């Protein structure tokens, strides 16, 4: 993937750059169109920083009408468009193309309506995830999905990726927490899906758009549900002598009927790394460490915490701390929240993976990851959203060494293949983007992928919106013998092949 295949460059578009730029300036304020190298440099990569690409131009529209006009123009002129929120995505979903306009939603940064009566907030897509909570917390409300990048990531990007977070175990991901969107289709059509009601009538277009990684439309407004903050929140910090004990404890807690607000796990390598980095005071004798957070009424939380401790003891826990106040609870989390920077301090680069597995397979996959770590001679540390089987192995490497980068990506791909083999998924919450595109054939066969491509084609006939993302370059799959050419038909003829 280091030599990533991207859709063939349309030289005609590139040669018309100055004409396109002057056209774009007709749709929005001139200063919103960026075309000089130094202006567009900040946009050449997203959270998957290993890949960089300079877009043709960057346009930062200010309202829905401008977005609609820009898309309509691009559709008519066959110009590719890459939508971008805050650019924090980890799978390269907002990676620019040289012959594409990068459409940044950064100017859509206002909350439009706080509607406590209907328990929702109507917001522009560029508002940050945490910005929504900040706007409603004075009345005791919050927005539930909490991806780790919530300080910076935009709600529009959350919709595109169906972002989750630490608390999705109990409160679900973005798709379970939004009520409506306004969206512009590639041909410029503006549509409103859902609103302030629960569910919607007709096809669940909201469900389709959520997690579609910017391939079906550009989100210009989002209505999110807000929830009342729980009265009491407490956490347990539990260490286990073996990975198996920790894994079994996760399964036992879930099957006992307890639904914790969050249940996180870290392996030995990460405990050591974070302890050096954040001085969280984590136990040194634990092979895995678990943070279980419970919320609800006070007596309920106290009761559940007792039950959790009991289950942990039955699974041979060798250390346990229960938070007695907010300060202690936050201290438990401080190490976990420092996990990524801690890895950053241990090696020049780290590569964060994101797969899902059935909870019962946690210890099994951890063993396999450790074997792979030896095979590739690359250090790895593991963080899990254990309650919903979502794992984030962090592979440490030196990006200046091309061979190490190649090995890292191969290592990562092997982890994800193992996830699928064990009944899990290629990506739990980061999205496919460009990163896992070629692995789609592990999870889906040709007919599955073809159906998805047909949907894409029905809404973006010329494949201009965020092309080259999510779906594999089919010929590669065919060469690897996983996908056969379907009854001699040409697959999605407009899709660029390499």
């Amino acid at each position, binding site marked *: 993937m280091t030599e990533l295949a991207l859709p063939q460059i349309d030289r005609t578009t590139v040669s018309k750059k100055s004409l396109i730029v002057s056209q774009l300036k007709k749709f929005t304020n001139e200063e919103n169109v960026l075309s000089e190298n130094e202006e567009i440099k900040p946009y050449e990569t997203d959270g998957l920083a290993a890949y960089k690409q300079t877009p043709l131009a960057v346009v930062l529209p200010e309202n829905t009408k401008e977005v609609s006009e820009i898309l309509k123009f691009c559709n008519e002129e066959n110009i590719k468009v890459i939508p971008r929120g805050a650019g924090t995505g980890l799978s390269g979903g907002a990676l620019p193309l040289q012959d594409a306009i990068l459409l940044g939603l950064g100017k859509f940064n206002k909350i439009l309506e706080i509607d406590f009566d209907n328990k929702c907030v109507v917001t522009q897509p560029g508002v940050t995830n945490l910005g929504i909570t900040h706007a409603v917390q004075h009345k005791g409300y919050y927005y539930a999905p909490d991806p780790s990048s919530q300080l910076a990531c935009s709600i529009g990007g959350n919709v595109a990726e169906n972002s989750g977070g630490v608390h999705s175990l109990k409160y679900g991901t973005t798709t379970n927490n939004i009520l409506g969107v306004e969206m512009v289709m590639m041909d410029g059509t503006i549509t409103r899906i859902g609103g302030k009601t629960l569910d919607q009538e007709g096809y*669940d*277009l909201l*469900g389709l758009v959520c997690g579609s990684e910017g391939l079906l439309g550009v989100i210009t407004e989002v209505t999110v549900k807000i929830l009342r903050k729980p009265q009491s929140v407490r956490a347990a910090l539990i260490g286990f002598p073996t990975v198996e004990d920790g894994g079994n404890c996760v399964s036992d807690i879930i099957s006992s009927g307890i639904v914790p607000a969050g249940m996180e796990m870290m392996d030995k390598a990460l405990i050591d790394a974070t302890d050096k980095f954040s001085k969280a005071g984590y136990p040194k004798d634990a092979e895995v460490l678990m943070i279980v957070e419970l919320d609800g*009424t006070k007596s309920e939380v106290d009761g559940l915490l007792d039950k959790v401790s009991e289950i942990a003891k039955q699974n041979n826990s060798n250390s346990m701390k229960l938070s007695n106040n907010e300060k202690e609870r936050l201290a438990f989390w401080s190490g976990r929240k420092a996990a990524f920077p801690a890895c950053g301090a241990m090696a020049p680069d780290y590569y964060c993976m994101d797969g899902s597995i*059935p909870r019962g397979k946690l210890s099994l996959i951890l063993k396999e990851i450790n074997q792979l770590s030896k095979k590739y001679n690359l250090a790895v540390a593991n963080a899990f959203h254990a309650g919903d089987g979502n794992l984030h192995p962090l592979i440490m490497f030196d990006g200046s060494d091309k061979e190490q980068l190649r090995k890292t990506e191969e290592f990562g791909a092997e982890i994800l293949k193992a996830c699928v083999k064990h009944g899990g998924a290629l990506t739990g919450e980061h999205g496919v983007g460009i990163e896992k595109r070629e692995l789609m054939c592990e999870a*889906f066969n040709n007919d599955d992928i073809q*159906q998805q491509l047909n949907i894409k084609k029905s809404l973006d006939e010329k494949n201009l919106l965020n092309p080259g993302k999510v779906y594999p370059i089919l010929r590669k799959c065919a060469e690897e013998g996983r996908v056969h050419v379907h009854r001699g038909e040409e697959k999605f003829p407009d899709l660029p092949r390499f």
Partner: protein
Amino acid sequence: MSTEEKKNSQISLDSEILSPSTEKEVSEIVREIYSKKLPIEITGTGTKKVFGYNLQTAKKLSLSQLSGIIDYQKEELYIKVKAGTPIEDIEKILEENNQELAFEPIDFGYMINGQSNKGTIGGYVACNFAGSRRFKVGSVRDHILGFKGVNGKGDIIKSGGTVVKNVTGYDLSKLISGSFGTLVVLTEITLKVSPKKQSQITVIVYSDEIKKISNLFDKILSSSNEVSAATFIPEEPSHKNYEHTKNKIFKFNDLDQEGSFLAFRIEGDKRSIDERLKELKIELDLSNFKSSILDVHQSIPFWKKVNNLELFSGTKNNVLRAVMPPAKCEAFSKFLNKNYKYYIDWCGSLFWIEVLDKDDEKINKIKNFIVENSGYLTIIKKSENFDFQDTLFTIDNTRLMISKKIKESFDPKKLFNPGRMYREL
């Protein structure tokens, strides 16, 4: 399969009802109807047949033979079943393991002919009509982890899987939920299951003042005490054509006063129920109302009756389902009150309304009110021989255009349930 075998099989196109028993057979049938351009009506056990427009297809594809539990992983909180599996079979095995489907499947049998008939899981997913716990736990679509099915060309396709965190490709599980069988013939469904709560109680608050009721709904929605259901059952209108069944159906030892009432449910272990009740009494100012409490033995059947639309048991009239933004609850209740037989579920968001036979004008009046107030309406049951002229569902033109394109990407020859949802689809 030889010609003779085909002729005698359940999947021969010679018979009016095709009853495949494997996914492969479904695929073969669809390939054949695709090549012959023969539209079909897809059914399970027929319990949702009344919904939507009547179909005029010559052939029916019944999924009733495609039944059975494929894989149940209690610890992983999922169950994978064939699409024609009766809801009761799923509920039974979950009950034995102290688990449940959190979306509380509605039993539409009572409304249709006065008898319990829950139908199949495929039918539930096709409609996406969740029960009373909706505002707390999400709809049917929020509990579908993955599916397999056959598209309109006969290709077997899948989406999702068995894990809760999965963003691999488009989330088609959501799209097919509520698509009324117009996109795929479902063959396999993986459902998220939930642990059952230890116990429950229901608090009955007697009042017929709409303003007070909607204020109570709002306070319940704003509370962090995790109320898991809230309904308002008003006194029925005096009109003789509405059957007066409320007092017969909601007859419980501790529901001891006639007239309109609001009911809400608290679930959990005994300690947390007690604690929440104490706090809710203060939050809702319950000392200002007459109230009573149904214990667990009364509470469970009470919510079954609410969920199963027993108020409309065997009705000959039209039944409408409207979903409103919660803050419109008061205005809409005032609009309906004393004129219609209705009740409110989902803590002020969901309205079930009975409208007298053959009354286009009234239905349109209700529809206009709903649309003007940002809600939506589905005509669930039409009275016999009543051909409602306007569309049974509410949708705007742009979404209809998008829906048509999506329909075409799954079922290009419009073979599945043609015209069931919208005449154009």
